[in-house]
């Protein structure tokens, strides 16, 4: 196939897979309400804990920001990593595999659609949390903040694409594994407190999940004085590491998808349902 036609097919596939996620946002409006309100309940509880122990007001900001970012991690677990398992259960996976297109384009479409839908929820949590709890916001550099956020998303969804490939092999384990990766990652990535509290080496290990570095950098840019003694790494280093992780995860996802698809095909797991 000529390169131009190949690129066209790739882009159409990515858009085709992103489309139901983007359109799905407006089909069931009650989901948006739940998606914003549910994390907000958890965020509110953590805000009240910090208030009960007399934490400075900036900690409310830490929690609200972490609460908004939980939407992305949940999206990675349930709509990226486990997605090929759901597709297998509903009988779509074999259609994906026989379609004359790139599997990476399908994963990219899942990621782009997921980012669009999740950003709506994250913004809702951030806005409502900021207004309800009067969170102080004074970014030192808006372009740097936006840059950190975008690099975090690229690296994070790269990880999601890699996990989707790994999860291709699994049946019910996929559901349980996604479930297992919630609270431990909330803990290790410092969603509700500065990750430095876990110690340098634990934070370093947790940096494999890009939100760890992204959250730390965003907190430094939003609350420089409060993060003075609590920061994990300088923002510049975190930006570089996020860029590196993004590239590494995308390359690994490409290779892993081929490898695990082949393995699943040989072991007859691609069409196994109801496990």
């Amino acid at each position, binding site marked *: 196939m000529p390169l131009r036609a190949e690129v066209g097919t790739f882009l159409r596939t990515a858009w085709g897979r992103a489309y139901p996620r983007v359109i799905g946002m407006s089909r*069931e409006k009650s989901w948006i309400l739940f998606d914003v309100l549910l994390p907000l309940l958890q965020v509110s*509880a953590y805000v*009240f804990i910090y208030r009960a122990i007399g934490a400075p007001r900036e900690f409310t900001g830490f929690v609200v920001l972490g609460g908004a970012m939980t939407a992305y991690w949940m999206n990675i677990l349930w709509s990226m990593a486990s997605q090929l398992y759901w597709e297998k*259960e509903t009988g779509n996976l074999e259609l994906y595999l026989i379609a004359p297109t790139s599997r990476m384009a399908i994963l990219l479409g899942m990621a782009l659609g997921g980012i669009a839908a999740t950003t709506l929820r994250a913004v809702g949590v951030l806005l409502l949390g900021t207004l309800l709890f009067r969170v102080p916001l004074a970014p030192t550099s808006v372009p740097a903040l936006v840059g950190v956020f975008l690099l975090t998303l690229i690296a994070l969804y790269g990880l999601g694409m890699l996990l989707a490939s790994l999860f291709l092999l699994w049946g019910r384990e996929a559901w349980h594994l996604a479930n*297992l990766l919630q*609270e431990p990652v909330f803990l*290790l990535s410092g969603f509700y*407190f500065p990750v430095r509290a876990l110690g340098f080496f634990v934070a370093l290990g947790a940096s494999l999940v890009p939100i760890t570095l992204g959250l730390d950098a965003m907190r430094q840019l939003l609350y420089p004085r409060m993060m003075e003694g609590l920061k994990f790494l300088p923002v510049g280093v975190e930006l570089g590491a996020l860029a590196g992780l993004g590239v590494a995860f995308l390359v690994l996802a490409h290779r892993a998808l081929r490898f695990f698809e082949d393995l699943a095909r040989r072991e007859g797991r691609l069409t196994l349902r109801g496990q």
Partner: protein
Amino acid sequence: MTWKEARARVEEAGRSLWVAAWLGWQIESNWTDPFLFAVYSVVKPVAGALILVFMYVVVARGGLANPLFPYVFVGNAFYIYVGAVLMGVSWAVIDDREHYGTLKYLYVAPVSVPAYLLGRGAAQTGVATLSTGITLLVGVGILGIEIPPGGVHGALLAGALVLGLLSLAFLGLLLGGATLLTARHNYFLGQAVAGALYLLSGVVFPLDVLPPPLQALGKALPTTYWLEALRRALLGDGGNATLGALPTGTVLLILGLSTAGLAFASVLVFRLAEGLAHRRGLLDMQTMH
């Protein structure tokens, strides 16, 4: 209804509950080997508890010696039951209707469906018991929370635990009724109820910290009295100034009465929802969750 018929119904409900508990246990645990399952059951709740530990370490003066910490830790440990029981009971409707496609067969078999759903929740309750126990052991053994075995009020602990679990199970049945009539909203409904209970029942902070209207809502929830009684049994003090004046007997009485009311309401609502679902042809609905 004659005595013989009533006895047959009770036996049928007991059998349904027992078989469902066994089935639920198999579904929950047989996806992996026992070791991995044990790790899975422990890691998640302990990680949840450790989030609170580090929030304290970073901020609270006195760190884990802060007097509020045992309150928070015990509340959080028992809250593990809330999600497990609520979702265990109500999710079984979605699981059986849409994933396994077996709900319709339950309705043509000599099975008590409410008892079956409560049984499915019992398996999750078993797993939650393991998680809660280990979380409390971590609290006492590693984090230094003082729960001297001699100082624990055993009868109060057992009574409060049973009443609280019953209350959660019937709340789960109520959600199960709603699930029979809805498509894919169960997950959100369950999470919303569990999240509201987390915020309003004083699970991880004293009720007194909440604004007055939310405090009033919290005081209307059985889980608030459940946690108050559990903390009194384990720590000797409920930790909520607003409930401190209530004698322990009154706390248990409120918990008992609200559980009885909830049981009556949930069975009634479930039966109504069941009838509606039957008439509307929703018992074998597929919404491709």
